[in-house]
């Protein structure tokens, strides 16, 4: 049986959803254990156990919360030395990828990143990786020992298997030399009512919204539907909305029941972050926009007229 180590990413002491998605897949591939570092690690072990971890190695040293990548790399290198896993899985998220990169360089093994699937094959592992902006899918065989693979958020649906993990204290002293990139302050700018990643309806606006002054139209529709508002990179780069709202290759991946793309052309770097949505609706004044070729319903027209009318209709239907 292959042994698989999952790096559990914690955010404010809670296991992030990407980790649970990975656990769900990993338990089909072999014996799964996880490592959770920083405050909340012990409590996180229960959640990880429910999702299939047999053992969770924990260490609650505050250094894991306060210093970028290096303490976690030390802990993983130490755990690798003890356990020699066949595969180490990371989420392809900003925080995890920094640890994965350092670890791969330290172990000299290389890695496969940006995968959207992983399976066992011939005693090793094969990952599926989108290529050319998602037009092609490459099957990549991992040769390293351990194999290190980073998997995109929302590649799998998380589900519980109902186990309980044995919790083991990971003995690792974080060296002073690893306490370097120090997080001294945390500023929250966007306080979302509904988290983009978890919303069942996502309404995203692009350059076709005309300007930041029109984004409240999307907020209104989102509150009527109980959804969240996302955005294309073009409008994030233009400073209309914060980066936290960006959907796509370099933003968030979402997989809602309904995704409404408003004034978004549908560049591959955008669609890679939303194309597994169950239903896609596009509102765009250009019938030839690429987004129209993947939408279940494409509406050709002016977003600034359609969105307010739609909000009114949704409210009317809910009240009627």
């Amino acid at each position, binding site marked *: 049986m292959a042994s698989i180590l999952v790096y559990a990413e914690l955010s404010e002491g809670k296991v992030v959803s990407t980790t649970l998605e990975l656990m769900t897949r990993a338990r089909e591939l072999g014996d799964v254990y996880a490592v959770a570092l920083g405050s909340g690690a012990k409590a996180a072990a229960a959640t990880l156990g429910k999702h299939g971890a047999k053992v969770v190695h924990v260490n609650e040293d505050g250094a894991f919360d306060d210093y*970028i*990548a290096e303490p976690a790399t030390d802990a993983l290198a130490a755990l690798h030395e003890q356990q020699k896993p066949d595969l180490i899985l990371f989420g*392809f998220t*900003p925080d995890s990828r*920094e*640890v*994965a*990169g*350092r670890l*791969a*360089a*330290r172990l000299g*093994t290389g890695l496969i*990143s*940006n995968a959207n699937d992983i399976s066992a094959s011939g005693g090793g592992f094969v990952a599926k990786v989108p290529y*050319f*902006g*998602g*037009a*092609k*899918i490459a*099957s*990549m*065989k991992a*040769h390293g020992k351990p194999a290190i693979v980073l998997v995109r958020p929302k590649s799998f649906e998380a589900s519980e298997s109902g186990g309980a993990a044995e919790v083991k204290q990971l003995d690792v002293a974080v060296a002073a030399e690893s306490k*370097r*990139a*120090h*997080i*001294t*302050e*945390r500023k929250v700018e*966007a306080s*979302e009512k509904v988290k983009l990643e978890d919303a*069942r*309806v996502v309404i995203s606006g692009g350059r076709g919204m005309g300007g930041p002054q029109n984004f409240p139209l999307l907020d209104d529709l989102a509150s009527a*539907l*109980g959804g969240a508002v996302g955005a294309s990179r073009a409008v994030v*780069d233009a400073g209309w909305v914060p*980066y*936290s709202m960006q959907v796509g290759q*370099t933003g968030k991946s979402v997989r809602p029941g*309904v995704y409404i793309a408003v004034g978004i052309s549908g560049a*591959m770097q955008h669609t890679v972050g939303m194309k597994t949505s*169950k*239903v896609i*609706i596009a509102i765009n004044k250009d019938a030839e926009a690429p987004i*129209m*070729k993947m939408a*279940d*319903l494409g*509406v*050709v*027209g002016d977003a600034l007229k*359609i969105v307010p009318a*739609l909000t009114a*209709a*949704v409210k009317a*239907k*809910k009240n009627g």
Partner: protein
Amino acid sequence: MKIVVTVKQVPDPNSNLTLEADNTISREKEVVLDPGDECGVEEGLQLKEAHGGEVILVSMGPERAKDAIRKGLSMGADRGVLITDAGLAGADALLTAKALAAAIKQEQPDLVICATESYDGSTGMVPPMLAELLGMPQLTFAKKVEIDGSKVKVHRQTADGYQVVEASTPALITVTAAIAEPRYASLKGIMAARSKEIKLVSIADLGVEKGEPAETIEGMAEAEVRKAGEVIEDDGTAVEKIVQVLAAAKVL
């Protein structure tokens, strides 16, 4: 302050990134300095202007990647190093990082600036590998950088805001597109760049071993494409139609 900026040559984002008949991105296509790295060069130049020192551009790629370095030199960087070697064709992230690290070590910089991810590779794995190989801390996703003596402080973009991250130099930082608007090269800059040095080095010069690739491509398949559904003109009934779809999807 000695600043190294890593720069990569990539297919031109403005020339449509469409695929050739055989589904590959033609390598003969227009190539440019990575737009993300252009922001890195700009930030390097601004730091030099504020604190003095030197900006050195380091790239790995085929010989024509000189053009990408030249672009950065015409913006105002001081000199360039190009690691070019037939053995590096198709190099993975780790080999790229090893080659870059070996060349950067010779420069002993105070600061290394990379983009968070490249336009074509786009997985952002090279910078953390590079930081590890150089033995430097990594301050990542910076949308703002401040230098105070031997301290570097960045505003690190996060999902819901930003963090303030501090370290001592030498350090590696990665910058987002929000860091600085790249300047246009002036005519004077373009002229001056012609006589600036671009040193060519091979992996043998750097003492880097190629090693076995960590991964190989076993196969390539078409991605599942979503089929186009219905496309309707908004003739006044579109809203009704959207409401029906929302109801069918059980979100309304």
